[in-house]
């Protein structure tokens, strides 16, 4: 049985998204900047997609900037907040310890440009509170960026409260909503955020296309200079097929949101029920404010990569942390941030579901995880020690 359970890494393109892309790939070949009919037809598709995306998050289409993905959106948002702050003489940025590397590494780069960065601690629950942010704010703070839902453990942050607080203080607020959009309700007006990042391939859209939402009145700063595309804020001939596919996917995801969420909660709870009995395992991050389809667990005495490769051999595609840090030797910075001890953090497993999964698959996952964990522990000197200490 094949079970793709790595939807937080990327998703399969939906039929609707593909169907939306195909005519663009074959017939709508114009450059949206060209004045002739072929170009203007392409432009109509572009602007229609912009409206669809705007509608999906309750934004105005003028607030939608297409990018090459979530990483670019994060980079541009952070540089915008930082540079706008610097113009006012403010150079302090607040974020959290468990952001995606697209945020953390951009902050590292900004540090080299003499910005101060405070990364607030994340509680054991995997949730940051508005108090944590309040305590970190200084006179010099120009930007706060907190992810909406964590990509590894799925915990959801109190974005609306933090946005409100930042607004009071006159601080720009950005949220990386790459894991949230299409999975839980996201309404930019209700949230009151200044900037918000989206990536299409996390909700069954194509890879390599994303959105930066920027609230009207905030002068976005370019990171890719050139032509006047995206109202002069993001140069480069538009990935029209990708953009149109993203618009179809986001519309579909938002339309089916409630049903999908219900289904995913059910599947995930089945997983939890089946796995929680395993000796010395833990669920990472509180399930109280949580994405419906993500489950992150640690199994003591084993190492994540062998776990996931043995699961792969059983047809189950999962992850041990986020996709882009695999291959690295360090345990997940997210798990460390929520206080999981290093040696336990090595034994992590992320199962991230989509509405295409079903309950039979969950049973296969449960059986396989139990089997593989038991096997790996049987050859693990770490597990041997744990058991010895127990006696």
């Amino acid at each position: 049985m094949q079970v793709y359970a790595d939807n937080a890494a990327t998703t399969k393109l939906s039929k609707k998204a593909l169907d939306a892309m195909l005519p663009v790939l074959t017939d709508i070949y114009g450059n949206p900047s060209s004045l002739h009919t072929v170009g203007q037809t392409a432009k109509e598709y572009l602007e229609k997609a912009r409206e669809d995306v705007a509608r999906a998050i309750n934004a105005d289409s003028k607030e939608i900037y297409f990018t090459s993905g979530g990483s670019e959106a994060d980079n541009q948002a952070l540089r915008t907040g930082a540079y706008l702050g610097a113009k006012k003489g403010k150079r302090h940025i607040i974020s959290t310890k468990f952001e995606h590397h697209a945020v953390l590494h951009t902050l590292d780069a900004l540090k080299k440009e003499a910005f101060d960065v405070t990364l607030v601690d994340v509680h054991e629950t995997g949730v940051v509170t508005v108090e944590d942010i309040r305590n970190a704010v200084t006179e010099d703070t120009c930007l706060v960026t907190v992810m909406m839902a964590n990509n590894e453990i799925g915990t959801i942050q109190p974005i609306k409260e933090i946005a409100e607080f930042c607004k009071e203080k006159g601080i720009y607020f950005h949220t990386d909503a790459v894991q949230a959009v299409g999975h839980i309700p996201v309404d930019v007006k209700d949230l009151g955020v200044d900037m918000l990042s989206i990536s299409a391939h996390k909700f069954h859209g194509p890879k390599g296309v994303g959105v930066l939402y920027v609230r009207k009145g905030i002068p976005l700063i370019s990171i890719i200079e050139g032509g006047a595309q995206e109202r002069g804020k993001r140069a480069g001939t538009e990935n029209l097929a990708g953009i149109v596919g993203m618009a179809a996917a986001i519309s579909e995801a938002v339309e089916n949101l409630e049903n999908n969420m219900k289904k995913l909660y059910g599947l995930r709870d089945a997983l939890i029920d089946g796995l929680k009995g395993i000796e010395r395992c833990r669920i990472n991050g509180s399930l109280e404010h949580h994405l419906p389809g993500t489950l992150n667990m640690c199994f003591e005495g084993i190492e994540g990569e062998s776990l996931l490769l043995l699961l792969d051999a059983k047809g189950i595609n999962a992850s041990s942390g986020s996709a882009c840090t695999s291959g690295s030797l360090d345990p997940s910075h997210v798990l460390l941030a929520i206080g999981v001890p290093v040696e336990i953090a090595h034994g992590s497993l992320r199962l991230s579901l989509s509405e295409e999964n079903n309950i039979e698959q969950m049973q296969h996952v449960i059986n396989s995880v139990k089997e593989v964990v038991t096997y790996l522990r049987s050859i693990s000197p770490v597990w041997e020690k744990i058991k010895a200490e127990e006696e």
Partner: protein
Amino acid sequence: MALYSEKVMDHFTNPRNVGKIEDANGIGEVGNARCGDIMKIYLKVNDDGIIEDVKFNTFGCASAIASSSMATEMIKGRHIDEALELTNKAVVEALDGLPPVKIHCSVLAEEAVKSAVKDYYDRKGIEYDTELFKEVSCSSCGEH
């Protein structure tokens, strides 16, 4: 699966010599759970100094398990002194290569074998050049 060679995947999914030897006369353990790899090697050396049996237990990634498996296969049936000649390079070659970030696993396998041999020498009171057994440090994650 292009991540690892077929050899690595074979030794990972069907590791040779996995287990423990209750009456081992040489045991070595290297690595650190904080770094994500621990290898423990059990030797059963007969009176002629031949490694009659060897087993391992490993906590670690696929290449750590594969390296342990390969290393044990390479020393089984050899003289204990020959086991000392096992290099991480030989393990990597026998596995048809390892990704650059995983080379340390083969180093760990070499060190685990050495540590077990040293333990055997110590138990038997055999003298040896201490230079051969340098302090094992986990170069990959900076801890030790």
